[in-house]
């Protein structure tokens, strides 16, 4: 655990030393702020952050690969990967350390968005439940997607390729439920089941309830298992370097 925290601390600090973090965070806040303002200033708007959560999942689609693309790709490009893998730390510790650092950065990015619910409390009387569950959903979804970006970064030494692969996988996870619209009316039972599976596999499906104030254990399990799968695959991906 100590090694994990050491790696996490080093990576976390390196994020803040880079201008990329500030630029990416500023872009994230501009887009979320724009859509938040748009959603709450229309007539008879709901005093909630639901639209903000809904928009954030699409923004995270490209923000998260941008955060994770360098984590392993850069090590491979600079040749420090061998050093890292031969150091007296386990692959799991390396992966967990980098994951925790990126999770910390994601939380640091989300922190300023607390300004938006603060505005709601200032000018209205919002329901606190959906605000809390909305943020819980964003953190769970972000935490799961970070592992996808981490896995993509472990596959290549090229950061651009890592970004594209990560964004591609996240895109599939976001829109996999769209296949529900493909079968025509009254599809066979098998197709209906397949569509239901694809809809369950979609990240968007699981954020819907959380954004409106309903915490379903299915959604929690989905995100936790997705995060665990991403971390597991990343560890396996690093391990293959020893015998490939």
């Amino acid at each position: 655990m100590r090694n994990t925290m050491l790696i996490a601390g080093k990576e976390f600090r390196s994020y803040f030393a880079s201008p990329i973090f500030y630029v990416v965070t500023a872009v994230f806040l501009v887009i979320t702020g724009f859509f938040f303002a748009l959603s709450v200033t229309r007539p008879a708007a709901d005093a909630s952050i639901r639209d903000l959560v809904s928009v954030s999942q699409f923004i995270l689609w490209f923000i998260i690969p941008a955060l994770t693309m360098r984590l392993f790709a850069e090590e491979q490009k600079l040749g420090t990967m061998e050093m890292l893998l031969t150091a007296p730390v386990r692959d799991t510790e390396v992966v967990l350390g980098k994951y925790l650092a990126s999770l910390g950065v994601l939380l640091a990015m989300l922190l300023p968005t607390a300004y938006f619910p603060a505005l709601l409390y200032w000018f209205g009387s919002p329901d606190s439940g959906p605000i809390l569950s909305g943020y819980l959903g964003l953190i769970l979804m972000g935490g799961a997607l970070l592992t996808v970006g981490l896995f993509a970064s472990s596959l290549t030494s090229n950061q651009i390729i890592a970004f594209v692969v990560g964004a591609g996988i996240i895109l599939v996870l976001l829109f996999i439920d769209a296949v529900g619209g493909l079968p025509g009316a009254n599809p066979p039972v098998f197709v209906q089941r397949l569509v239901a599976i694809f809809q369950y596999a979609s990240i968007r499906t699981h954020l819907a309830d959380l954004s409106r104030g309903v915490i379903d254990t299915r959604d929690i399990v989905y995100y936790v298992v997705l995060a665990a799968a991403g971390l597991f695959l990343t560890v396996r991906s690093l391990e293959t370097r020893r015998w490939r």
Partner: protein
Amino acid sequence: MPPEEPTAKPPAPPEPAGAGSLLEFARGLSPVLALGGVAALIVAGVIQLVFADLSLYAFIVLGIGAALLLAATAISFDAVKEALVGRRGRYGLNTIIMVSAFLGLAIIANFLAGQYNRRFDITTGRQFTLARGTVTTLAALKSDIQVTGFFAPDTNALDAALKGPAEDLLAAYQRVTPHIKYRSVDYQVRPQELARYALNQSPPVLVFETPERVQPVFGRVSEAGLPQFVEQDLTGAILVATGAKLKRVYFTTGHGERDITDAGDLSPGYGLIRRGVEGDNYQVQTLALATAKEVPPDASVLVIAGPKSPFLPAEIQVLDAYLRRPGRALVLVDQETPEELLALLKTWSIAVEKGTIADPSRFVNPNITDVVPLPSGHPVVARLDTVFLPRAVALLPASEKLAAALAACQQGSLADVNGSLFQLCPLLVTTPNSWLEKDPSQTPPKFEAGKDARGPFAVAMAGIVFGPPEGAGRGAATNQDKPTQIVVVGGTDFAANANRGLNNPQLFLNAVNWLAEQEHLIDVPQKPGGLRRLILSPEAASWIQWSSPLLLPALVLALGALNWWRRR
């Protein structure tokens, strides 16, 4: 030393002409065979899953696939062996097995999570938790109901605001039953679809449709003055669309009873209570006793809400005949209730004491006669924690013999009084510190020993009577199927529009539901406005518009610049 003769290898036995090239050709073909085998296995699986009738063909294709794979393995045996048991092969296989095992566990975890999930609704008023009555109604559905939502979210801001919450509510219905089918139609784009229903009100609207019936639901105006779709209306529409017969509740008129058409926010009328009763899927009608020869046979519940002027003997006879039918009545009494009605209630076992109750232990400030009585365990009030009754009067059994009926309530039994069976249950009780103030001129009310009676007092009672109230005759056990049921509340202001806070309306609705034998609707409070609208002044809107997308990014960039300057 003689030079060594070069040792020559014995010549290999000659291969049959063309054998080597055939082997090479077969080895080159093996990847194709393997690919063909895998493709055949996939095709077989698809045939089996999609076309269940063609399973014979699926097995044939499966056999062909297996044969092709075996052939490919036999031809390139060395390569397959190396891939499986060589160093890379072993590690690779190990990785594949571990990843497969993990994926299997992930699928199992999600499957179990789906089977045994728990949902926690953390919204105020549990907006997304369906009422028990709704769940019961949905669970009883046997055939599909098509729900069409007519919204124009792209051109109408109100439609845009209502569409999401309405669809959320319907999604909750769909989680309970597969028989709710929903589709959304933009009535600006396809007005002909809306015209088909010939509705007498403008959209947005949800239309519930079965082959036999169509029932539209429009948004109900909330306390904030904006419409919203509420669960009671949707469930009611399902009941109507499926042909369920709605029960009727009659409110008597002609004696200064509370006005059920007055829905003014701060008025003493019962307009909001009427909406609540309708929301629980009853048809509400008024009944002028002076002109009615009888209470209509379809009356599920008769409500007598705070009459002030005297009843004619004929009217009392109509009421008495109704109760003997046996009927169900909710009677709200106060200081001004006419004597004729009090006498009828006394006949039916409940007496009303004159005087106003003051309770210094539980009251709504500043008036100690606005008592907050304690609920008993009776189903009507079991889940109501706070009800307040302004100017409450005390209720008690009409005779000493009927004290046994009170004890019967505690035991869950019936007391035999002169051959009829009685049960009397106090619903709401004041504290022992309360007293009955006999002098209405005394302000503030003050307890005077020897003059004022000390509590606790029942201020709401439920009575069940099998047989005539005067008794069926000693030893005559009644075999009546259904009893007469009466709920008497010692207060009338509690259900007024102006006092709709706390659980006051729910006390009224629960009493109606208990009398109408709709117990599944009891304890289902109508949810407070789920949507919290943001009403912004132009200045506030302008501040949000500018500060949200610009202020925070500017601060973050400034921090970045500061960091860069420091590190430089």
